[in-house]
């Protein structure tokens, strides 16, 4: 178990900077997630921690010891790959036992350990099979088993759930959380799926174009996004953005497409031009006019089980909100929206930063 600290870490491939100025710490025993769109450098960060990719600049520490020049073996990390990367010529037993075999641990001890891990992951009956005789979920478990059998200092996971079908993914998510709770090993997780990041992690770093946009607890990045990118990336469906103008500061009056809102935010904006972010789950679409509502045109109604997602156009901006199941509107109708003004997030339009 270890604390992992990045100090001004940079990674370039030739002239292309893939990761820049990475400066953060994953605490001992923490479940820490790097999330971002593909190509944001998150897998590269994982490979740098593992020692599979050299660091171009800066230092990586495990518990105050620099590991830049250590081999993967010396770093004592374990990794679960997106493709599982099981050894196809070995049985499940041999796959799980492999890291211990490399450590030259006596066979009897290895066998005991493998059985303990197999029990933990429900693999007892599969030990004699080869990877090609397993289903996706079973392969995933074997890959996990191979990683945890060593009790590594750090656990690295590179999109481990993205090859599973939706149902299995939710199951394995719970399993990962349970395992982390039991083993308490520092875990660095990489995913492009923000909902996975939110549900699993203790803290999240949101990455874009090789730079950390925000680092915080799931609740922080969700409710207080640092900038427009984080606001749009975290949360599903993504946040709606409306261009607006500040009409007064005390009290705050914001002109959203001629609709004036007065959120209780204390801000000191540099410009009059701001972007208002509204979560779709905060917008309620109704067919009845009420006080403080805005008239919009409905473009799509998507049933989501217990409620409806409703796509609509406000002025000329396409947005998304929610509606009750029994609402009597369909595409093309006029309808009304309301949202609590205090729940909006304000961004500086020029810099994109939250105000």
């Amino acid at each position, binding site marked *: 178990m270890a604390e992992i600290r990045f100090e001004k870490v940079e990674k370039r491939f030739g002239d292309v900077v893939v990761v820049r100025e990475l400066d953060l710490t994953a605490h001992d025993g923490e479940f820490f997630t790097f999330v971002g769109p593909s190509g944001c450098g998150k897998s590269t960060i994982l*490979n740098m921690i*593992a*020692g*599979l990719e050299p660091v171009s600049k800066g230092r990586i520490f495990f518990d105050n010891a620099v590991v830049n020049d250590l*081999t*993967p*073996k010396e770093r004592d*990390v*374990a*990794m679960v*790959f*997106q*493709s*599982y*990367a*099981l*050894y*196809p*010529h070995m049985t499940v037993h041999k796959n799980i036992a*492999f*890291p211990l075999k*490399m*450590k030259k641990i006596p066979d009897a001890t290895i066998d005991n350990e493998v059985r303990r891990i197999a029990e933990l992951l429900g693999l007892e009956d599969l030990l004699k099979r*080869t*990877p*090609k*005789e*397993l289903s*996706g979920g079973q*392969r995933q478990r074997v890959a996990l088993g*191979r990683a945890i059998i*060593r009790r590594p200092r750090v656990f690295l996971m590179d999109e481990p759930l993205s*090859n599973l079908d939706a149902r299995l993914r939710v199951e394995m998510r719970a399993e990962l959380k349970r395992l982390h709770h039991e083993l308490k090993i520092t875990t660095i997780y990489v995913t492009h799926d923000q909902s996975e990041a939110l549900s699993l992690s203790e803290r999240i770093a949101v990455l874009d174009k090789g730079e950390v946009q925000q680092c915080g607890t799931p609740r922080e990045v969700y409710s207080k996004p640092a900038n427009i990118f984080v606001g749009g990336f975290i949360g599903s469906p993504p946040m709606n953005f409306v261009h607006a103008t500040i009409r007064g500061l005390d009290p705050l009056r914001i002109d959203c497409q001629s609709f004036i809102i007065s959120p209780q935010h204390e801000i000191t904006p540099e410009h009059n031009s701001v972007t208002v972010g509204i979560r779709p789950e905060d917008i309620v679409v109704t067919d009845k006019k009420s006080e403080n509502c805005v008239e919009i045109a409905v473009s799509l109604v998507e049933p989501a089980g217990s409620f409806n997602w409703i796509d609509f156009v406000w002025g000329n901006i396409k947005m998304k909100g929610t509606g009750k199941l029994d609402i009597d509107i369909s595409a093309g109708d006029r309808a009304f929206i309301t949202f609590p003004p205090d729940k909006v997030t304000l961004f500086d339009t020029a810099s994109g930063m939250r105000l």
Partner: protein
Amino acid sequence: MKRICGNISFSLTVILIVFLSLLPFVWFLNTSLKTQLNVTAIPPTLLPSFSFHFYQSAIANYGLLHYVKNSLIVAGSSTLITLIIAIFAGYALARLKIKHKGLIMGGLLLVSMFPQISIAGPVWKILASIGWLNTYQGLVLPYVTLTLPLGVWILASFFKELPKELEDAAKIDGCGHFQTLFKVIIPLAAPGVFTAAILIFIYSWNEFFFALLIMTKQKYQTLPVGIALFQGQYTMPWGEIAAASTVATIPLVLLVFLFQKRIVRGLSAGAIKG
């Protein structure tokens, strides 16, 4: 109707090709099993008499087993040495960060295309100057040189196709470069290793030109050269030549049949999601 016609013409073509390819082999197999009289009988007899006379004669009078031994030594060690070098070179070219990789691979291909006759003189001179003419190593060395490009190409392309994650996984599980190579890469590239081994062995086993040039003493001559020299000034021992040719061919046929399954079997199935 069209389909039946197509099937028939396909089958006929296949039969014709198989017949033409097998004809020489069947011919000398047939000849080797005839008696001395039948070999030169006119009109020729089509069916053999299943006599092993020529095999006994080839062994007793022409030293067939001696040539087989020499061929096994030369082809076996050439294959082994080439494979060992090609595995390391192929892995390095497939995975390590080396400058001018394309140039190296292209160069290898180019070298393998030199006509043998153009390098025969220099090779002979070099071997003569180090006293390796009429030694096993004198023949093994050029064979290794000539088969290396093929071996490296086959293995490099096999190694390249293996998922990179498997190597990463092995490194993280505590393997160094060599352990990764021997515990993970080679077992998975087994079909490639066998393919390369068989092709190299066949080349070294069949090679005639260098064998004739370098091995002038009967003690070191290999099968192809030995068989060619069965012929005396006034004799043409057709039966013994046919018997020796059969003996020279059968190991190769067996080898290919034996390892065909390994070559075809897709060992890497199940490694990654698919």
